[in-house]
């Protein structure tokens, strides 16, 4: 009985360590489009360690704030603005329209 349980726990721990480590591209580009208070893609995700290029196009003059990484995009209407960063922290980071504190979406950076 006890041996069985110890075995079970060992199997669980092994299974745990086997997870993870699949290959992801080292650099990605995501094109965002902001119309009013909606953004596409609606659920952006990336993986920690990736080099991310964010291109943001807004329908009017807007300041888009990417929380956590604390990056501000001062967008002019219909003019793509691009910034590149290395994703060095994982988590769920808010993107918002700074002027009106309007929540756009949360950018998910998964752990590598």
């Amino acid at each position, binding site marked *: 009985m006890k041996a069985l349980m110890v075995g079970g726990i060992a199997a669980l721990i092994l299974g745990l360590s086997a997870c993870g480590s699949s290959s992801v591209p080292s650099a990605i580009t995501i094109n965002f489009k902001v119309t009013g208070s909606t953004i596409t893609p609606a659920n952006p995700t990336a993986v920690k360690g990736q080099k991310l290029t964010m291109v943001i196009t807004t329908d009017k003059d807007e300041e888009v704030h990417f929380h956590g990484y604390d990056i501000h995009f001062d967008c002019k209407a219909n003019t793509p603005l691009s910034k590149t960063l290395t994703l060095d922290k994982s988590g*769920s980071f808010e993107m918002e329209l700074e002027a009106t504190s309007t929540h756009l979406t949360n950018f998910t950076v998964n752990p590598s």
Partner: protein
Amino acid sequence: MLGRTPAPAVLAHGFGIRYDLPVPLYLYVIAAGLVVVLSFLLVVVFVGARAEERDYPRFSVDRIPLVGPVARSRVPRVVGATIGVLVLAAIIVTGLLGAPDATGNPAEYLLWIYFWAGTVLVSSVVGNLYALLNPFSAIYDVATRLLRWSQGGLRSYPERLGVWPAAAGYFVFAYFELASGQSAHPRSVAAAAIIYTVYTLAMMVVFGRDAWLRHGETFSVLFTFIEAFGPVEKRDGRIYLRPWAVGLTRLDLEGWDVISFVILTLSSLAFDGFSATPLWSSIYLGLGGLTDALGSVGPPLVKGAGLLGLTLLFAIVYMLFIRLVDRAGRRRGKLVPVASAFAFTLIPIALVYNAAHNYSYMVVQGQGLIPLLADPLHNGAHLLPTAGYRPSFALADAGFVWYLQVVLIVVGHVIAVYLAHRRALTTYEGKAVIRSQYPMLLLMVMYTAVSLWILAQPITEAG
């Protein structure tokens, strides 16, 4: 969401933004499985155990040179009380005079992160810090000494009220934090601090300092539960170190008041997590017509009802399981003593859930206070060269946080199962001991699943 003010992401939780990622499904399943396996392992260990009241190992602090005398002197309380009074004063002053927004005002960080999330977590690890910090009893002590008043109070505390005043205070505090919509307003935080200070001082004048701290002062009562979990024990005027959690077996408070208080600590934490889940979001939006019809009191009323409803649900489920436990234990008599005895075994669950739920919020959001130290009152001052500080995420890597959360939840529930077994040994006899624990085991596994389910939910915003 038309007609309602747009909510900045997830403000249910006092204030501020949460950066943590939900626990992935595979970890959830592993953790839930581990709890079941470890719990049954404990049952196996306890089969045939005898009901001898074994004491746990203790280590006398007095044996350590320097530490012992200092620990028993007045120094820790004087230092703690000074910090406590300064923090209370800072909450009131910066709350009233500082920036009007939550993230720019130190009062919000001090109350919700450093006191509420932080002091509770640290106290469960190192021992009751609130007993040292308590600013209300410090103000009272100094005032009564200056005015040469006796500390006995004007009348004696009605014992039949038990800790109901403290439990009621806890509900009001949880409502203020999670449902009122006021917790992210620095002015409201300052007002609440002033009201609670005046109320507490008045009650100490009426009923005497110690009587009110034991029964009415919400945080003092809450921290006696946390103290019982912590590793510091005061017994017969001496100070000991002991393993964590075992002190809970020595708590012998009894009554509906105590049961309600313990259930509230669990349910308010669960509501905090639950109110960020898509399920609550859809319930809340489903009630949109009702909420709108009620106008500005709608959201706090609906959320308050949610908090109350979840508390009642937890209480009903708990009492149902206690009935099953008692039936399986073949003991006839009142349920209240049994329900009280087992209620304390739930405290580790509340504490680990608190730690798992608040960890990344604390280590990241807590740093937000640092840049504010340069200009705490938002009047352009440059007191410290910290204005440009940006929070570091070094301690909040999502992968690390997941494992930490899962380990905490599993360990907390296994401790709870262990404590419940020890309680059963002193409550029931013979084979009934183990039998009585099957319903309890089921309850604990259910609690684990619910805690993990909340931690595994995508974080959404509601109202």
